[in-house]
Each structure stands twice: as C-alpha cells, then as structure tokens.
C-alpha cells in the first residue's frame, strides 16, 4: 500500500507536463505521424517545427482529442491519459488557439469566451460576473481587450487574445498555439511574443506550432522537429542556430538569400488608376487605388489579410467587376474586357487558391497546361476538333522544363499532384504563355522549402526577361526578398510605395496597420 503511494508520488513529480510516446496516425494514403515522440517540460515554451505536411498539426490534434492516434500513449504529468475528444482535453487542462479563430462575429468578447459553459444565476444568464472574470484574467496575463466589445469590431490580434482568454477561462495549464503569427502584423507578432512569455511566467506550459525560425529563436526554450511524419529530434533552442534548425526541418542545407541580379526597370507596363471595387452588398473594398508596374520589376503588395488584396486581384484579372477607374496594360485599356481577352492581351495570373482557381483537378496535366489556349492553334484544328496529342507533347515539354514530378506524365490528373507540383503546373502554363504582366498571389503558400526556392527563382527569371510582375503576398519575408518596390495596402488603398532597400519590415508593418504618418516621422 505504502510502496504504491510512493510510486504514485514519484510519477506525480514527473519532469514533463506532456509526454507523447510513439504516436502513429495514418490517413488514407498518408502516414501523418510515424512513431513520433514529444516531451514537453513544465513551464516551458516548446516549439514544434516542421514544413507543411510534416505532421505537426496532426500530432497536436491528437493531443487535443480531435483525432485519435492509431497507436502510442499520452502522459500528462506522468499519468497516462486517454483523450477521446476535445472536451476531455479541456477538462484535463489543455487549451488550443487555432490558426483560424473559432469566434462568433456578432457576439461580444465575453459571450464568446463563456460560450458552451455559460455562467447562470438561477436560470438567468449571468454575463456580468463572467465579464468581471474576463477582465481579471486579461489583467493578470496582460491580454488587453475590452470584454464588452463585439468581435467584428476588434482587430485580428485582439481576436487572438480572445482565443487565449477562452483557454484561460477554462483553466488551461497547457496551451497549444497553431501557427499563431500567420495572420498578424509584425507589431502584433511582437506583442504576442510578450504574451507568450507572460503566460510562461504565470506557470503555463506552451506548445508553439510554427515553421518560422525567428519566432522559435525569440521565445522558445526547446524545439522538437518533425519531417514527413517522423521525429527528427529535440534541441535546446539556445544551442542551435537558425541555419541548423532549418537543416533539421528540411533535411538538407538551405539557402536563405535569393540571388537577385540588378535590373533597371523599363516602361510602365501595367497602370492601375483610381480603381474602385465594391462587394455584393455595395461596401467599398478598394478606393482610389493607384499603382504603376514597369517592365523588369517586381512590385509587391504588402498588407494584412482582408485589406483589399483579393479584390485587387479580382479587379485586374476580371474575376470581379470594377465599379470605377481604369486598368491600362501596355498602353491599352483592359478594364472593359472579358477574362479571356485580358489573357490574350498578355495578362498572366498565378492565383492564391490553386485548387479552386488554378487547376481543374480532374483534368490531366496536359489539359491543365492548355486550359488557357486550347481554343487556338496548335491545339484547335478544323471544325473545333482538339489535338490532344499536341497538348500532351506541349505538356511533356513543360514537365521537363519545370521539373514537374508526376506518376504518369502528361496524363496524370492534376488533382493527384502534390501542392508544389500543382503550383509548378500553373507557373509553367502562365510563363509558357509569355505574358507581358504576371500577377502572382501567394505563390509559395503551403509549399515545402524546395518548391518555394524553385518558384521564387522562376519569378526572378521572369523579371530578368523583362516582364512586369505584381506580387501580392501576406508573407512579408517573401515580399522583402523578391520585390524591387513595395506598395503597402491598407483599407483598400495603396498608402505608400517604397523602394525595397529604402524601407524596413518594421516600417512596412506600421503602414500595414494603417499608421502611415508615424512611419514617415
């Protein structure tokens, strides 16, 4: 009896808050986690690093009970637990801040926080005491947010704090953050880093899912690296460099800097003048937007998501109707033209959502390569008959030239390709059409490092060929790396255009947040 208790005591003082041992999880066709082990010490910030598809989110979903592992065990404070669903995880003190917030837009902060465990006095909802508790929590952890504000009225950064408060309100001791910085401005990222440190100081254990090395170096104590579903290793962050972390993540040496030879821009090739776009409800999404893009330069559009980027892309490509202004491509007005006519005038487009707008998944690589030019020679013969052999030949050429990896060559269905190879199909198609202007949106989102390097290099190559390129991206790194000039978009207007070497990420961050004047001062 006594020995049993002693044993129990010993277990209780386990060094680790979380231990996941030999976790294996399979999905049809994929081994997402292959005997992965994760050991998180109490009161540490533990980073979980890996490329897209490395199995980070799967592992954390298992910890949070959204998935059940095929095999392996989970121990919390040394005690084996079975986490069948997220409710069990919550009752065990595990909270998760999802990448895409799960908030009700027209509820207040307090209402969102108590949702699902509403406090009652008798039979009446008692929001007042809840609101007080929320205010206390936000004071304790430095999470400033107005408990009575509506979610739709507060910034993305504040919404994230609401998500954090939600976990604290449920007495979480372990908080999982899934790619928390993806939607934040540089300033908001700094603030989040402070919040993470404050949480640690208050005794919380934090798991940070990310692929951004700088954040790991800044706040985490230790880091576990996954690659293609397998466990690579756990390191003390202070013992390794960013370069070493990157190599662990990718499995080979990585080049950070992109070679970008000097190139003098030429004539104005695309001119956007006084653009105005309204949504279906008549709300103005783009207002008096002006921007010129020259031959041989890459102009980046930097901004926080939802500041008119998709509307700008839609207006240029013709996917959305323009309510005012003009678009001039190589001296010709194109704002009244159909999508196909714009393509024929020399407008290329690499869309951000490649599965929705970029490829037809059920079509082969050959058909996808020809999808913008199938109605013309050499693909279209007499009486509208198509020459599918010519399409296959052209696709073979592109597969060669752009290193597209597929199971069956030109007849492989695009839907069965990996994200990187789908993107290569799109890039190959757009470049092969020799556009005068190439509009590129989020070209490397969700791709692995190899594909990212390749796609970026191809974009630079196009610049060297003298094409005008407009790059819209939410990744400020990408814009700083690739662009010659950077246009910052805020609330549907371009607030500033700077040469790349004349501006810092911090300054752009300030302008993205809408405080243009401060940045100039």
């Amino acid at each position, binding site marked *: 009896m006594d020995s049993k208790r002693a044993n129990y005591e010993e277990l209780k003082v386990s060094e680790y808050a979380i231990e996941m041992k030999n976790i*294996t999880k*399979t*999905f*049809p*066709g*994929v*081994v997402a986690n*292959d*005997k992965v082990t994760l050991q998180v010490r109490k009161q540490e910030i533990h980073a979980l690093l890996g490329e897209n598809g490395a199995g980070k989110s799967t592992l954390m979903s298992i910890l949070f009970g959204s998935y059940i592992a*095929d*095999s392996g065990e989970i121990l919390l404070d040394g005690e084996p637990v079975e986490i069948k669903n997220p409710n069990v995880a919550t009752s065990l003190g595990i909270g998760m801040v999802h990448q895409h917030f799960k908030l009700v837009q027209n509820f207040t902060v307090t209402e969102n926080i108590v949702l699902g465990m509403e406090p009652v006095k008798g039979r009446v909802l008692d929001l007042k005491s809840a609101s007080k508790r929320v205010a206390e929590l936000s004071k304790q952890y430095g999470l400033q947010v107005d408990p009575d504000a509506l979610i739709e009225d507060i910034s993305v950064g504040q919404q994230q704090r609401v998500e954090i408060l939600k976990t604290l309100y449920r007495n979480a001791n372990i908080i999982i953050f899934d790619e928390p910085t993806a939607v934040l401005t540089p300033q908001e990222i700094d603030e989040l880093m402070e919040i993470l440190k404050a949480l640690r100081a208050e005794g919380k254990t934090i798991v940070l899912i990310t692929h951004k090395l700088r954040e790991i170096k800044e706040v985490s104590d230790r880091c576990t690296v996954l690659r293609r579903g397998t466990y690579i290793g756990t390191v003390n962050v202070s013992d390794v460099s960013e370069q070493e972390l990157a190599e662990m993540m990718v499995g080979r040496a990585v080049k950070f800097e992109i070679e970008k030879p000097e190139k003098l821009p030429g004539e104005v090739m695309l001119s956007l003048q006084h653009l105005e776009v309204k949504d279906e409800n008549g709300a103005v999404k783009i207002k008096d937007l002006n921007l010129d893009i020259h031959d041989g330069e890459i102009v980046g559009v930097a901004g926080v998501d939802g500041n008119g980027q998709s509307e700008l892309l839609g207006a240029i*490509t013709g*996917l959305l109707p323009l309510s005012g202004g003009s678009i001039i491509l190589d001296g010709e007005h194109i704002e009244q033209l*159909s*999508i*196909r006519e*714009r*393509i*024929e005038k020399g407008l290329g*487009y690499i*869309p951000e959502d490649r599965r*929705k*707008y*970029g*490829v*037809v*998944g*059920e*079509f082969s690589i050959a*058909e996808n390569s020809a*999808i*913008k030019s*199938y*109605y013309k020679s050499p*693909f*279209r013969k007499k*009486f*509208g*008959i*198509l020459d599918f052999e010519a399409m296959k030949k052209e696709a073979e050429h592109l597969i060669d030239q752009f290193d597209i990896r597929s199971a069956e060559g030109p007849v492989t269905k695009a839907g069965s390709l990996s994200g990187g190879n789908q993107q290569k199909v799109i890039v190959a198609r757009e470049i092969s059409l020799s556009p005068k202007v190439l509009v590129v949106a989020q070209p490397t989102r969700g791709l692995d490092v190899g594909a990212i390097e390749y796609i970026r290099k191809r974009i630079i190559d196009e610049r060297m060929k003298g094409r005008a390129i407009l790059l819209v991206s939410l990744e400020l790194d990408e814009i700083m790396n690739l662009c010659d000039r950077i246009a910052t978009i805020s609330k549907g207007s371009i607030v500033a255009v700077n040469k790349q070497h004349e501006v810092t990420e911090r300054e752009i961050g300030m302008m993205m947040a809408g405080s243009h004047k401060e940045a100039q001062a």
Partner: protein
Amino acid sequence: MKLSRERLIQSDGAVSVLVVFLGFLVGTILIALVGKNPLNMYKAILQALSGYNIDNGKMNIRYIAETINYSVPFILCGLSMGFANRVGLFNIGGEGQYIMGMTIAQMVALLGPQVQGLHWVLAILCAIIIGSLWGGLVGVLKAKYEVSEVVSTIMLNYIALYLSRIITLQMPGATTYKTANFPETALITNDFFTKITNYSLLNNGIFMMIIAVIVFWFIMEKTSLGFGMRATGFNKEAARASGIPVVKSIALSMAIAGAFAGLAGGIVALGSFKYGRVLSGMDNYGFDGIAVALVGNSTALGTALAGLLFGMLKNAQALMQSKQIPKEITFIIQGMIVIFIALRSALILYQQYLDKKKLQKEVGVK
C-alpha cells in the same frame, strides 16, 4: 490481384457493371421471397434480349426490335441528363423538353406540308429546336441570373405538360385523349424493319438515336466546345479564371441537352403512335433518363448501354407478367441500381479504409 481490385473500384464503368449486377441480385432474391421462381425472370429477360422463348423453343425477332425501340427514348433522355451533368448541371427538365418535342412534332405532323421526305424531317427538326429552346431557357436563367436549374426545370415540366394539352386539344379531330391520325408522310416507320421484325414498332428513330450518341461523344470528348464545358463542369471557378466563357458554356449545354430530349419526344410521337396524344400524365422517359445517365456515368457509350438495359427491362415487363412474375420487380431493380450508384462513395470509403489498414500494417501498428 490487389491492384486489379483497386482499379476496379476506381473505374466508373466497372462500378456501373457491379451496380447492375447487385440490382439484379436483389431482384432475384425478392422474387424468391414472394415464392416465385426467379428463373422465370431470366427467361423473360433472355426473350427480350434474343427473341428466344426457352419454354416453347420458338424464336421471334420482334422482341429484340421492341427492346431497341423502347431504349431509344431512354438513351436520348439519358443523353439529355448526361450532357448537362458533364457541365455541372442537374437537368431534371428532360421530361418537359421531351413533352415539348413530342407536342410540336405532333402539331407539325398534323398541320405541316404533306410532302414525302420533307414532312417528318420538318417535324423532327421542330422537336429538336423546341427542346433546345425549352432547355436553353433554363440555361440562360441559370447562367445569367443564377436561378437554380433544378427548380426551373421542375416548373417547366408542368408548364410543358399543360401547354401540351392546350395545344393538342386545338388540333384537328381532337378528342379528350387523341387527335386525328397523322398523314403517312409524317411517320418515321421503316417498312423494312416492320417486315423483318414481325411488325414491331422499330422505326427510323434508331438511326437518329445513333447519330445523337455520336454527336454527344464528338462534342464532349473531341471539340474545343466540349473541353470548355467539361472544365466548367469539373471546376467552374478555375474554368472562369482561365478565360473559359462559363456563362456561354452553361446556357449552351442546357440547349444541347434539351435538343436530345426534344428529339426523343419527336421520335416517340411519330414512330410509336399514328395519332397525336392528349397527355393525361407524363411518359416519364425524361425522369428515367436521369437514372440512365447515372448508370452510364454521363458518357455517350455508357448512356447508350444503360438505355438499352432500361429498354430491355421495360420490354421484359409484359413477358414476366405472362410468367407470373410481378412486373413491378423491374422497377425495383431499376431503383436498386440507382441506389447502388448513389452508394458509390461508400465504395470509395471502403477503399480508403483498406488503404489505411495496409499503411498501418506497413508502419507496424498493432
């Protein structure tokens, strides 16, 4: 072996065959359950397919001809559903397009110029045109104003039915159920067929049906128009972003779909009847066409084969009844086939389950 099973489940054609087999299996079990001999159903089916009556050893080619004749409108209405389906639309309006085609063909037959060789051609052409207008209207509403094609086609089916009654009641010699007889020049009967098939109703419609199947295949698989339509059907957004005129594709596909069903109406009016009919209800070829297209995976050849199957079942009904098998069993078989087709995704889930198990074995999960 494993590979072949995977291929089997992934191949649309193989799934259709499997599904038809399962449908018959259920039918067989049902007949046995009601205490009849399932063999009699297969005897009836054999007779509908080959004309051979196994009980008395007599051969009558007329049964084969009737099977084919029944399948003509099934196939054409299947093409109507299938064509729209390939462009991502659900054409429930085959019935209305069929009725309009039939009505106009009857009208031209009764009122048109009685010129040998021109009269029936004109009637058939008018049936095709009115069918494509009836379908095209739905396409325009869908493409321009985003009116759900499901709702508008259902409505148009009823409009077609009652419009048909109003028009046909105005025809010469119209009673509450029929008009005067058509002049000889309007009929598409084929004397040669009539002679060699012991006075079956098989007529020149079979040639038009074959041409329609080829036209479907040619447009869809071979032309640039079909390429744009298929892209629209698979992924409308990507097609639009690639410059494909999706509005035009959608409107045009419904018009072409309507033409197939209109042709079916014309063929039934001028081939199977010698007078105009005042419809008291729908013929249901348009609705059965939905099932035919589903079984045929909306391809030209698949739809033709599925249409033949449905024609054969329809022809077998009378034969089954004479062998004391309730003819309703054929409707059950048809229904089971459609249900099994709808369960296709279950097969895919099963395949994924097997894949997962295999993977788990490979990585050594207990």
